Each structure stands twice: as structure tokens, then as C-alpha cells.
């Protein structure tokens, strides 16, 4: 097949589409109103809900901070609160930047560059989230344990079956983290190549 044949197929399609005027005024106006679905609206809703849960837990940790009676539990508390506040704020701000693209004004090239950069920022944050989330288990769990059941996990001895269960959990979580991290890397790589080509 030659390029000219592609062009001719396109022209034939254009001519035939020109003759199709299936949209009615009602359908068009509906498209401008309630039927509109924006995928970022959905993502933002979920992220906002997630952020709200994180903030509530952070507030609970802060309110009960006095119960963390050793220096290492306090360090875990500070790390937990920071994680629960900073990461959601950064994710929401990255989403805000994607939504701030001015579709009506910027050129295709400018918007493509801005979009790739904003999307990569979001993916990078999600990547960091996966990594820190794994480490987070080590500082959030002791805080939860102390606040909820007043048990200091650092001072409790672990039984053999608990050690086995913990090792299995850590193994599965590590595999998931590596898989998710690789997925994010793959997603950003082709976008980075395009960005390099554009700039």
C-alpha cells in the first residue's frame, strides 16, 4: 500500500462523512451539558477523597501524639504525619496543573509539552508514593498499634508464625512495589522521548 492510497482512502472518507449530518441541535446541546464526563474529574474526586482520609488520620495521630512515649515512636509519628499530609497535597497540586492547560489558546506543541510534563510529575509522585508507602508500613504500623491498642511493637516479642506471616507480607508487598515501579517507568519513558524530541 502506498501513501497516495492512504490519502485517497482519507479523502473518500472525508467526502462520505461530509454527507452525514446525523447530529441534531438537541444532541449537540446535551453534549455541552450534563453528559460531559472528564476523566480528570474522576481521578481528582478519588484523589480528594483519599487525601481527606489521609488528613483525618494525620489529625488523629497529631491529637494522640502525646501517647507516643518513646523517642522512636515519636520519630515514627512525625514521619507518618508528614507522609499523610505532604504526598496527597503534592498529588492534588500535580492534578491541578494538568487541569490548568489552556486548550483554547496554546498551540498543539505547547500543550503537548505542558501535558507530558504535568503527567510525568504525577506519575513520578505516584512512583514515589509506591516506594514510600512500602517504607511507610514500618513507621505507620507502630504508631497505629500504640494509638489504637496501646502496644509498643518494638518491645513485643514476635512468635515464629508471626515472623513467617510478616516475611510473606513483606515479600508480596516488595514484588508489588517493584512491579508498579516498573510500570510507571515504562509509562514515562516513551513520553520522555517525545518530550526530548519536541524541545
Amino acid at each position, binding site marked *: 500500500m502506498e501513501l497516495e492510497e492512504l490519502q485517497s*482512502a482519507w479523502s473518500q472518507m*472525508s467526502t462520505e462523512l461530509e454527507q452525514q449530518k446525523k447530529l441534531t441541535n438537541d444532541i449537540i446541546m446535551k453534549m455541552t451539558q450534563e453528559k460531559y464526563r472528564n476523566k480528570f474529574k474522576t481521578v481528582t474526586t478519588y484523589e480528594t477523597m483519599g487525601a481527606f482520609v489521609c488528613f483525618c488520620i494525620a489529625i488523629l495521630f497529631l491529637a494522640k501524639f502525646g501517647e507516643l512515649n518513646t523517642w522512636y515512636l515519636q520519630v515514627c509519628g512525625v514521619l507518618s504525619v508528614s507522609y499523610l499530609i505532604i504526598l496527597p497535597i503534592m498529588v492534588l497540586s500535580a492534578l491541578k496543573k494538568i487541569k490548568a492547560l489552556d486548550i483554547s489558546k496554546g498551540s498543539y506543541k505547547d500543550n503537548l509539552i505542558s501535558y507530558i510534563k504535568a503527567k510525568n510529575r504525577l506519575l513520578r509522585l505516584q512512583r514515589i508514593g509506591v516506594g514510600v508507602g512500602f517504607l511507610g508500613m514500618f513507621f505507620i504500623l507502630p504508631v497505629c498499634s500504640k494509638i489504637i491498642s496501646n502496644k509498643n511493637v518494638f518491645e513485643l516479642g514476635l512468635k515464629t508464625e508471626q515472623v513467617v506471616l510478616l516475611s510473606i507480607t513483606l515479600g508480596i508487598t516488595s514484588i508489588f512495589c517493584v512491579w508498579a515501579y516498573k510500570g510507571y517507568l515504562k509509562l514515562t519513558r516513551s513520553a520522555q522521548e517525545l518530550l526530548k524530541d519536541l524541545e
Partner: protein
Amino acid sequence: MPKEAVFTDLIREHQGLLFKVTSIYTNNKQDQEDLFQEVVYQLWKYFDSFRNESKITTWMYRVAMNTAITHLKRKKRRPDAIPVADAIIKETESKDDLYEERLRQLYRHLEQLNTLDKGLVFLLLEGKSYKEIAQITGLGDSNVGTRISRIKKKLKTNMAKS
């Protein structure tokens, strides 16, 4: 004439254009319809900002293509998804086998291009001059020429392979 009436006339008049833009950035009927709807919404949202400094179709191309950028999805193959080329064939009620086969091949080749190249090829297929393509995409005139000849080579190689 009320604004709504002007807008609906515009969309009815150029629905073929919008259909084509949305078809090259999606790979199945459902995504194409979603993107079409989103483009119409964006055109309506920014309708007041159109200043007659360029042709209305140039503005429509720009808004539609810019909207498509933010709509890109990871390619998910669903067994029940209708490929976009088949959706067009149905839409145009074609009975020409050769044209149908060419159209399917055309979309197969377009699917392999990156977002920028897709946009450039689309405008080229639409019969736009390098100058108009530069105006819509924001690339320099000579840059457009260089990129298009590179894409043509890439397409030729892909076509030879298939």
C-alpha cells in the same frame, strides 16, 4: 441569532472534521464517542473566546487536537471493543471493499505513530499546507517539513513490512 443556534450550526456543519480528529486519537468506538463529546464541550466552553483572528476551522482543529492530548488513554484491548475504522465504515455506510480495507490499514498505521506525528499526519491528510500546519501546531514551517518527510519515511517502511 442566539449563541446556542450559532454554535449548533457550527458543530453540525463541521461534525465530519470533529469525527476525524477524534478518530485518530482513539482506537475504539466508545473512546471516540467520549472524546467527541469532550471536544464539543470544550468548543462550547471556549466559544466566546474565539476572536475571528483565524479561520473558525483553524480554531476548531486547535481546540479539538489540544483536547485529544489530555484524553489519551493507555491502549486497552477489550474483546467487545469496535475498532474505530469499523465504526467509520459503519458511519459512512460504505459498500466499497477496497476502500474499507484501505481505511483499516490507514488506521493501523496511524495507531503506531506518537501523539505529535499523529497530529501532523492528520493535518497533512486534511490537505493543509505546511504553513497552516505550523500555525495550528506551533512548530516552525521548516520544522514541519522535516518532521513530515521523516514520518512519511517511517510510514513507508511500516507499509512495506505489512
